[in-house]
Structure formats: structure tokens, C-alpha cells
């Protein structure tokens, strides 16, 4: 069964300026005097977040701009180790963050599907077997041999969804990608989450569409400047924080 446990997780990004990224400046920093470190700043993207998700969780991540939603999803997917605290993820996590699918812009859609399967630990034969399912779900027949950099954003999102379905994500993380999809495709995704994914799977969504969240999610957390302010059933959360979410 899939499971995620974050304990007192903080993520602090260093703000690099030109001098901070210079090997020469870092090597000879003490000789250059105090000005060599004048720019060193940090941005706190997540601040002491504790969260436990069991199999079957359907969680909405709420919050305004720069609240830390994408960072939280990246930590949940194991893409970003926390600066402090611990994050444990059990299960095959597939992250659909923006339109970035994440292999190579020069790869074709076909190579991307196979490559992602290999990265997820599937064998070459298993990847080829699942190719058809990805193509079918994402309606990718016409673009299968096109390089990623020639695909529209909608095609890229459908490709990402096809991959998530074909490789049976146990933890599905979706971040701000529905704007690029047709309503029929969104409906297909909802139906897949409702009845196609195993009940022991985890789905975490950070989207602005209230209707989409209400259809999929039952629980929600609210982030503000990296802090987890509130959590509970989605309906109550949307009601309590309506002003904050619409401002």
C-alpha cells in the first residue's frame, strides 16, 4: 500500500547570485574580503510541514501564489530532499508538474514513454507492452513519432497522463496542468482516478479548478508562505478559506 510521511519538513533554497556560483570566488573568498558573501540569501519554500498520507488519500493542496504547493509536491514525489526533517515515500510516484514530463526535448513521444518506464524500473519488454495503453489513454496516435519539442503543451500533458496511467502510478501528483486539457480529457482523467486507480493509491492535486478538486479530493491542506496553516475535509476548507483562496 502506498504511503507518504513528512516529519517537520523544511525546504530552504539558497539564492545564488553570480559570485556565489563562482568556483574562483568561493576558492579565493577569504582573500577577497567581506564582499564575497554579501549576496548570500535563502528562500524558505516549506516551513516545518508535517503530513501523513495513507493509501486511498485524495488530497487537494490549496494556497495562493508562492505558497509552497509545487515544492510540497516535489518533496512528496521524492524529487526534492528536504533541507530539514524527513520525507518517506512508499509506492511508485509519478509527478506531473506543469507540462514538464522530464526526459529530453529531442526524444519522440514514443521514446519518452519507453524511457519513463525504464526510469520507473520496468523492463524493456514491459515498457513496450504498456506503450499501447499510454497511447490509447493520451490519444497520442498522431504524435507518437514527433520529438517533444515539437508537441503542443496539450499534447505534452496528454503524454504525461498516458505515462502515469500506463505505468500504474501508486502515488499521482498533479500540479497546475489541467489548463492545457480539453474537458473530455479532464473527464477521462477523473474517471480513471475514480475507478481505474487502485483504492490503495494516493492522489495529490494542486489545481485552481474548484470543480475538479471537489470531484476528486475529499481532504485538503492549506499552505501560506511555506507553512501548513490548516487541514481537514475539502468542503469545510474551501468554505473556511474562501476569501484567502480567491484573493
Amino acid at each position: 500500500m502506498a504511503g507518504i510521511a513528512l516529519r517537520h519538513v523544511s525546504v530552504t533554497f539558497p539564492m545564488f547570485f553570480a559570485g556565489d556560483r563562482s568556483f574562483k570566488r568561493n576558492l579565493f573568498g577569504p582573500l577577497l574580503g567581506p564582499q564575497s558573501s554579501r549576496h548570500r540569501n535563502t528562500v524558505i519554500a516549506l516551513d516545518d510541514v508535517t503530513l501523513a498520507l495513507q493509501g486511498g488519500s485524495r488530497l487537494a493542496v490549496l494556497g495562493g501564489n508562492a505558497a509552497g504547493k509545487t515544492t510540497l509536491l516535489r518533496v512528496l514525489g521524492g524529487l526534492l530532499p528536504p533541507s530539514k526533517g524527513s520525507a518517506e515515500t512508499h509506492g511508485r510516484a509519478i509527478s506531473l508538474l506543469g507540462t514538464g514530463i522530464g526526459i529530453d526535448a529531442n526524444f519522440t513521444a514514443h521514446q519518452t514513454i519507453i524511457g519513463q518506464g525504464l526510469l520507473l524500473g520496468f523492463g524493456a519488454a514491459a515498457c513496450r507492452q504498456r506503450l499501447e495503453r499510454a497511447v490509447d489513454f493520451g490519444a497520442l496516435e498522431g504524435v507518437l513519432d514527433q520529438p517533444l519539442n515539437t508537441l503542443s503543451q496539450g499534447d505534452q500533458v496528454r503524454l504525461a497522463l498516458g505515462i502515469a496511467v500506463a505505468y500504474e502510478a501508486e502515488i499521482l501528483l498533479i500540479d497546475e496542468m489541467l489548463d492545457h486539457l480539453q474537458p473530455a480529457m479532464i473527464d477521462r482523467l477523473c474517471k480513471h482516478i475514480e475507478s481505474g486507480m487502485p483504492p490503495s493509491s494516493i492522489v495529490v492535486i494542486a489545481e485552481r479548478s474548484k470543480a475538479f478538486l471537489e470531484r476528486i479530493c475529499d481532504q485538503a491542506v492549506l499552505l501560506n508562505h511555506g507553512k501548513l496553516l490548516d487541514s481537514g475535509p475539502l468542503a469545510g476548507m474551501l468554505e473556511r478559506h474562501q476569501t484567502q483562496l480567491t484573493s
Partner: protein
Amino acid sequence: MIRFAIYAGLADMEASIRRTILGPLWSTLGLAFLVACLSLFFGSVLKQVLPDYPEYTALLASGLIAWTFMASCVHQSCNLVWSFLNTLRHNRMTLVVPVVRVMLRNFVILLLNISLALIIAWLYFGRLAVTPLALLGGILLLVLNTFWISYVAALASARFRDLPQLIAWGLHLAFFLTPILWIEDNLPRHGYLIDINPFASLIALLRHPLLGLPVTAEIWLGASLIGLLGLLLARWLGRHAAHRLPYWL
């Protein structure tokens, strides 16, 4: 992960030969042209104290084959974080994967270069002096050493943006200080410069077996020791610094 690296490396190869007649042979032909030009230049114009012309050409070609592989891997690894930014940002993978991918496509070119050099040598001399077992061992040690250098260069370049330029400068310098263009015998007074140059041992790993020269115990030991220490350094960096990679992207 490694299966993906192999798949991606082969896809890179396929992309490089798509819609070209000669494909990866272009780089081999480029190298052959360089060898021809340099051997003419150093052999004729500078009138360097050389063994006979074919012998110098063979020394030059074998040295350049080894150097091209090593330098291409390190140079491409320095920039791989930016070349594979999307891959690294969206997947749980270590930097080893893109490094192996880069090395794989260069390894295929290395094998092509070696094959072509052997064919030309056979056509020219009518025989081959190559020692196959030593050549296999030499290639293995060369690849191993190139791997750790590439990995360390890739990781450090992800953190420090000016390192690719510094490393490119260092590679340029090392190219001239390593006996690739010139003959070791032409350095009678400062022989220690070869002894302390790790690249000299790495070049010799490929050059000596290709030319049928004995690979001395010093060369085996030196290259193995450099490889072992380098791999330990790469492992230490992998444990203590690689987890910061997502914060540098």
C-alpha cells in the same frame, strides 16, 4: 536507471546518424584528418626529432584517440546538468545516469576510432602489433577513470557555473603537457613532468597495447591507483554533496 542510460545513449547515437550518410564516422574521419594534418606539421615543418614518419603518425593517432574520448566525456559532462535539466528536475535519478549516457555515446565513437586505426595500420604495414588482452584491460581502466573524472566534473559544474570554462582551460593545458603531440623521449631533462602527469598513464593504457608496446607495471599500477582514489572521491561526493543537486538546478 542504467537501463535508461543505455536506452538514452543509443537514442542519442540514433539521432546523430539520422539523415546522415556517414553518421558517427564523421567524428572518426575528423580525427583522421587531424592526425594527418598534425603529423605533417610536426613531422615536416617543425622538423622535430622524431622516429620515422609512420611510427610518429601511429603514436599521434593512438594518443589522440584516447584523449578525444576522455576530453569529450569530461567536457560534455561539465554541461550535462544544463543539457538534461528537464530530466533531472522531473525524475528521481542520480547524476550517474546522464554521465553514463554521455560516456556511452562517446564509447561507441572510441570503438569506431580504434577499429578504423587498426584497419589503416593493417593496410599500411600489412600486420597488426596490437596486444588484445592488454588493450581490453587498458580500455576498461580508461573508461573507469574517465567515469569518475566526468562524474566529479559534472557535479562540481552543477554547483559552480564557471567550472566548465576552467575545466576546458585545464584540459587544453593538459593536452599540451601530456605526450600526445610530442614524444616522451624528447623530454630528457624533465622526465618527472611525465611521471607526475596522471593523463600520461591514462593515454599509455590505450596507446601501448595498440602499438604493441609493453604496458609496464608502473602504468597499470598508476592508472589503477588513480582510478581507485578517484572512485572513492566520487563516492564520497555522491554521499555528501549529490543530494544538494536539486537545489542547484
